[in-house]
């Protein structure tokens, strides 16, 4: 279809539009149409943008991970794990609680570098396949997931099944003879610390770039 406006001049004066003045190119009809659309767009964005930001806000908000007392230093040894309950989400009662398996750092078993945050090893019960709760089976000295058969060894490394990385851990510290559990962190095959990732997200190789860390949850800086 040929553009019939092509042949016309862009000046309203040349097009003999009543009330046109010198140098005017935008007709009043076009101007009114554009302003009505702009006003409508501004009005719609005034409620759409805040609502979307409201729904997306939690992605960018860092969640507080306070240190929690879990017991006296002498409750834990190097031979086996002791289950402890901590709160990982506030205000939801039982649904916000999670079990953590704890033992003392054992230089004969643990090869990762020693620092102030790993006098005690605290393993999360969150399976790194899809997040079901694993349990420690003392006879097998293994962590076993009931959902899809993930198996982890004594250090929480993957022994078999679908999990993509070792069990998450928590920072621990000792204050006045009491053991405290701090923020969560994820580990790769070498038990290096990474900002927490969700289950099913590998951290070896390109994994840490394919599954970037999120602003909502971070490991402690410089650890």
């Amino acid at each position, binding site marked *: 279809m040929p553009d019939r406006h092509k042949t016309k001049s862009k000046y309203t004066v040349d097009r003999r539009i009543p009330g046109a003045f010198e140098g005017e190119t935008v007709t009043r009809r076009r101007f009114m149409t554009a302003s009505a659309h702009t006003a409508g767009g501004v009005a719609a964005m005034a409620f759409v943008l805040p609502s979307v930001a409201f729904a997306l806000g*939690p992605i960018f908000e860092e969640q507080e991970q306070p240190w929690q007392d879990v017991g006296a230093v002498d409750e834990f040894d190097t031979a086996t794990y002791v289950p402890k309950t901590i709160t990982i989400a506030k205000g939801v*009662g039982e649904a916000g609680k999670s079990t953590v398996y704890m033992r003392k750092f054992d230089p004969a078993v643990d090869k990762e570098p020693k620092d102030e945050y790993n006098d005690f090893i605290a393993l999360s019960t969150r399976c790194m396949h899809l997040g079901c709760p694993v349990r420690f089976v003392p006879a097998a000295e293994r962590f076993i997931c009931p959902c899809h058969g993930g198996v982890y060894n004594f250090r929480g490394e993957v022994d078999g099944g679908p999990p993509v990385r070792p069990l998450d851990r928590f920072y621990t510290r000792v204050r006045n003879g009491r053991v405290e559990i701090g923020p969560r962190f994820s580990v790769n095959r070498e038990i290096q610390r990474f900002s927490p990732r969700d289950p099913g997200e590998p951290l070896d190789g390109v994994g840490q770039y394919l599954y970037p860390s999120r602003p*909502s949850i971070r490991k402690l800086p410089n650890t």
Partner: protein
Amino acid sequence: MPKLKLPAPPIPAKLNPRPARPGSTKTGPLDVAAEAGISAVDWVDERTSISGAARWMMFRKVPKGTNWFYTLGSSTMFAFLSQAVTGVFLAMYYRPDAAGGAYESIRYINNEVFLGEFVHGMHKWGSSVMVILVFLHMARTFFFGAYKYPRELNWVIGVALLILTMAMSFTGYLLPFDQRSYWATIVGVNINGTGPLVGPYLSDFLRAGPEFGATTLSRFYAIHMLLIPGAMAALIGAHLYMVAKLGTTAPPWIKADSPVKKEEKA
């Protein structure tokens, strides 16, 4: 005059109303009452011209060979309507409170509310019925070749409706807030998280944070009962409009009459 003729009451003939004289057009209250329905419809139609649209929608020509398989679409729609109605009434008793109120309110619906278990059961089992009907309807469309030109856009809308139905199933599964709901949702959200690059942010969005927290349940509830149903209702409207606009297809085993044959018949 209305066509409706009521039987004469068993009273003495003298008391019966006299029959109308030929040529008289007097209408009694009975005649007005008999035409009340038509008058009301007329009143609305005169102001909206809606009868044309209703006729266009309902009295369509359908091709030869149309059969029971063609009712799967309406069956799906009625499954949706059933979910919508039972869902609205479940919302009268449900409380999206992750600290225990949600589970307690579902227990209350099932054990205390009159017909509560029935309405909850309709909604729970109806969701599976709807998913099954969606797939049967989709299979009918596929095997009858009804997705082809000019109906591709309707297929695309249908796929969007399928995805929204799945999203409804996913968000609705959490609401009873028992062990099964909770862990199924943890697993489902983590499956979302395994998408490269966007996955971690998507699961943060679904949970409203890095952990399953206080607002996760209300977020799922809002998505389940407000966001998706609205989108689905609008898309079902578009889907139906296009069915009426384009008409339905004949089954593939019906051969179109060739012009020669048509002449022979005539």
